[in-house]
């Protein structure tokens, strides 16, 4: 049976069509591209009413900062959020996928999602790909059984902890946590501690930078504080900006007016015989 010539949208999952070609190119001395990573400092801690997650906002491509304000705290369920470190495409894809699976599960069961459900879905997927899906995650949320905080490593192992850090800035952030964490923190103390830990990652780790994002999850409520703290504002821009009095040389200009779409008028005249 001959292969279909039409390329229909595939059924899902990864496609390995181009692997042979890419291997051949690699043998010829062509190095594969570097992927966007999220360097990163991500943290989570459990306080008296729930969970607080924190992340920096820098995305790097090799040594260059490609995004100064990216979002690393991903939505999983109304009561569960997940911070991601590692290859950006992997963290985004894996959290999106598990978020959809959780939604379908909610429809099936009619109940609020549990953090351990998200945990198991994520770890099974990551273990299945033996660490090649390079996503290191800090998963936190509050469900019927209480607040939970977990870390998930790219190979699929997990830890359940009262406070956790991941990413290249994890050591800097963990130093802050280990010295200042105590049980039963209030909301403000918790936010302050998380901000301090992320700032320590931002200032000391080269792979992390820009602003601090915080997400506070409590029973029945969540608060996403995007850019809660901006310790690195851009102060050097001149207010005048650049102006270019001598115009660029143009060889050819083509103007295409965008045609308006035809409007459908309801109840027009009936057709005559």
């Amino acid at each position: 049976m001959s292969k279909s010539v039409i390329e229909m949208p595939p059924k899902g999952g990864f496609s390995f069509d181009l692997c042979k070609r890419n291997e051949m190119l690699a043998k010829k001395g062509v190095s594969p591209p570097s992927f966007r990573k999220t360097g990163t400092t991500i943290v989570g801690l459990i306080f008296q009413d729930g969970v607080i997650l924190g992340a920096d906002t820098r995305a790097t491509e090799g040594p260059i900062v490609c995004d100064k304000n990216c979002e690393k705290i991903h939505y999983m369920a109304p009561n569960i959020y997940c911070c991601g470190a590692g290859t950006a495409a992997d963290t985004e894809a894996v959290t999106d996928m598990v978020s959809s699976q959780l939604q379908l599960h909610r429809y099936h069961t009619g109940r609020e999602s549990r953090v351990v459900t998200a945990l198991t879905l994520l770890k099974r997927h990551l273990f299945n790909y033996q660490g090649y899906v390079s996503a290191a995650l800090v998963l936190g949320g509050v469900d019927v059984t209480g607040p939970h905080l977990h870390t998930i490593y790219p190979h699929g192992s997990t830890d359940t902890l009262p406070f956790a850090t991941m990413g290249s800035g994890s050591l800097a952030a963990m130093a802050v946590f280990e010295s200042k964490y105590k049980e039963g923190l209030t909301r403000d103390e918790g936010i302050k501690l998380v901000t301090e830990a992320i700032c320590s990652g931002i200032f000391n780790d080269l792979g992390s930078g820009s602003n601090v994002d915080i997400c506070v999850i409590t029973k029945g409520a969540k608060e996403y504080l995007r850019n809660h703290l901006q310790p690195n504002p851009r102060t050097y821009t001149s207010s005048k900006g650049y102006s270019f009095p001598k115009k660029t040389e143009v060889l050819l200009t083509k103007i295409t007016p965008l045609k308006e779409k035809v409007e459908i008028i309801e109840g027009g005249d009936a057709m005559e015989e």
Partner: protein
Amino acid sequence: MSIFEYNGSALVAMVGKNCFAIASDRRLGVQLQTIATDFQRISKIHDRVFLGLSGLATDAQTLYQRLVFRHKLYQLREERDMKPETFANLVSAILYEKRFGPYFCQPVIAGLGDEDKPFICTMDSIGAKELAKDFVVAGTASESLYGACESMFKEDMEPEELFETVSQALLSSVDRDCLSGWGGHVYVVTPTEVKERILKGRMD
């Protein structure tokens, strides 16, 4: 040698006031030899969404054909054009599908969304989206482009000023990159018209 340096490219997209600009260089090379000086890197998906593809030219052409196919299917099913945000998600999914054997392309997507709000986005070769509010860059000249755009960009520029800024940023960056150049191709899109201009640059 990296696979992205095989053909060479430079792409930039910038947001203005109810308009956007997307620009590319025009050189197509095979390592250090130039084989075309009028190569089109930016293509129109529909009236309000433009796609630029940098990286390996053959993968860019294949990817472009697949995306046009998917968009036409979408148009048939939904009887309307795709919004730029949706299109960006489609490109990201198609690239991530090939996570372990990727297309060697970095797309730059620019479009006008609902209420004529400009939208720009770039991705790495496996589909990690980067949505920016000011500018996005891709290609071998990306490091210089980051620097040029970072200093020349201003908020809420009118179409004419936006064109000047994008052109200056593009030309100054490709002048510092051997693999891209030979002029520029700039599209400035407002809700009422698309202005396509070809720039004269250094021919080396």
